[in-house]
């Protein structure tokens, strides 16, 4: 029987429990060393489908600054985060921008939008 044990450091609360997840035949069978339920849920998610927020910048033309900080409107699959960031590296938007404006819709077909983290006025506006 193929049994894989994986360590998962929980980040839900400051206890930072170091849990251990056992996977057999692609299924989670045991979760050990998590002090609470939230930790167990987190461990499960981390092993099955870890997801992360993405924050990065895109280029903006005509703005007060040359870059606009952006944030994903939800979590993305962890293993796609870097690819999303690299995709956004080529994106250019134009000022003015309002916080929340969509900068990239449904990034890489993952069903998550990337939006502006802040508003940015045009450079000629005082």
């Amino acid at each position, binding site marked *: 029987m193929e049994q894989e044990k994986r360590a998962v450091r929980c980040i839900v609360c400051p206890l930072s429990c170091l849990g251990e997840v056992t996977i057999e035949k692609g299924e989670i069978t045991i979760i050990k060393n998590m002090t609470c339920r939230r930790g167990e849920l987190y461990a499960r998610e981390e092993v099955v489908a870890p997801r992360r927020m993405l924050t990065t910048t895109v280029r903006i033309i005509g703005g007060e600054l040359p870059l606009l900080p952006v944030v994903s409107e939800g979590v993305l699959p962890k293993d796609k985060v*870097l690819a999303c960031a*690299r*995709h*956004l*590296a*080529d994106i250019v938007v134009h000022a003015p921008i309002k916080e929340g404006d969509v900068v990239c819709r449904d990034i890489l077909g993952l069903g998550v939008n990337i939006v502006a983290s802040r508003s940015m006025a045009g450079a000629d506006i005082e």
Partner: protein
Amino acid sequence: MPMRKKADVVIIGGGIVGTAVARELARFKLDITLVEQHPDLSMGTTKANSAILHAGFDAAVGTLKAKLNVRGNELYRAWQEELGLDIKLIGSLVVATDEEGLLVLEQLHERGRQNGVPGLVLLSREAVLEREPHLTPATLGALFAPTGGIMDPFGVTLAFAENAVRNGVEVLTECKVEQVEVSDDEVVGVHTSQGFIEARYIINAAGVHADDISRSANDHSFAIHPRKGEYMLLDKSVGNFVRSVIFPTPSKVSKGIVIAPTVHHNTFVGPNALAIDDKEDLSTTAEGLAAIVAGAKSLVPGVPLNAAITQFAGLRAVADGDDFVIRPATGVRGLIHAAGIQSPGLTAAPAIAEMVVDILRSEGLSLHAKIDFCPENPARALFRDQEAPEKQKLIAENPLYGRVICRCEMVTEGDILDAIHRPCGARTLDGVKRRTRAGMGRCQGGFCGPRVTSILSRELKIPIPAVRKDTAGSFLFFDKIRGTHEVKDHE
């Protein structure tokens, strides 16, 4: 600016010696070009030293060092006025902490007298400790030299260069001499990275590379043995921990580990002395820093080393025989060496220039004085040194004097623009730093660095990735990586 293809004199090296020579030669009706390999002046030994104006009691009697030290010290009095040099005569103290040291003090006193050093006096233990309360209680006495002091080597070098340029000298940076061209044992010119410059007279003020220059003209009469010295600089908040330049009693190899204020109210400790082979080695080492710390503590036990803001190293250009090499080349007419300029090089510089002019004259160069030679530089005060009404006036004339870029040293955008656009202006981050002090404070450029970089990019009309820290290849930043190009491990 088109480069002169022919000059009467080419000066190799843009340190304090080369620029002093340029300034003196600028008095005469001559076409002069100074070539400097780096993007800025004073990038060699002139950049990293003790910044001390030596009184002149240390050098052996009868040496060029001794003679030119005292003469240079004297000449600075006049030059300081004319050129607005930042020099402070705070005096030097050689401190003895044992009986042997006291004997050395007497030797130095006598030597100084023979060298013509004015005002030397031996101080008693009480007198010394009253002057310098932070000195070690093991102090037994000291030799005090009122003509000793401190200076700003970059500022002085730039002032020489600016005055030279004002009077018609051409200064070329990023112009490296590859070869001195000789024909029939006579100099005909120099091959540089920017092309050939025809010239009958060449001044070799190339610092640690002076022997390389000499050899390229087939003169193998001397070699330079670089000796590295490390330094530590302490924050201004430490204040005037010591009043004068404090020396220990000297050894055969060096004047010893000094502790001294700087003209900008920092305090520095150093240097140690280490013979090295690599002329490009400017690294500080844990051992070196420990040695200078120990040296400093033995003189001033309470020196607050946790106030260190930076460490750096410099190379002394030591020639065989240990004295300056200031003479016509051996076997080659037209090449004049101003080499082996280690300590007291900064102090001797005006006198070295004087001597080089004399040598040129006796080597046949006609020297006709310019009627319109302008010995002064226009007054150029930094914003922070002005009084409030002058500050307001400056801002009214140029609003950029109202934007403070470097908080730690109170440097405004107006100052930085001036530093970039004036003759021999800054073209690098450290060039701005040396001219304005932006980045020399306690945050060491953390806040102002990106801003100065932007200003350089804008003013020099170059993209940000083309802005350099100091040397030709010291680029600071890169364009962001394009979307599809991820850096792999083995790239």
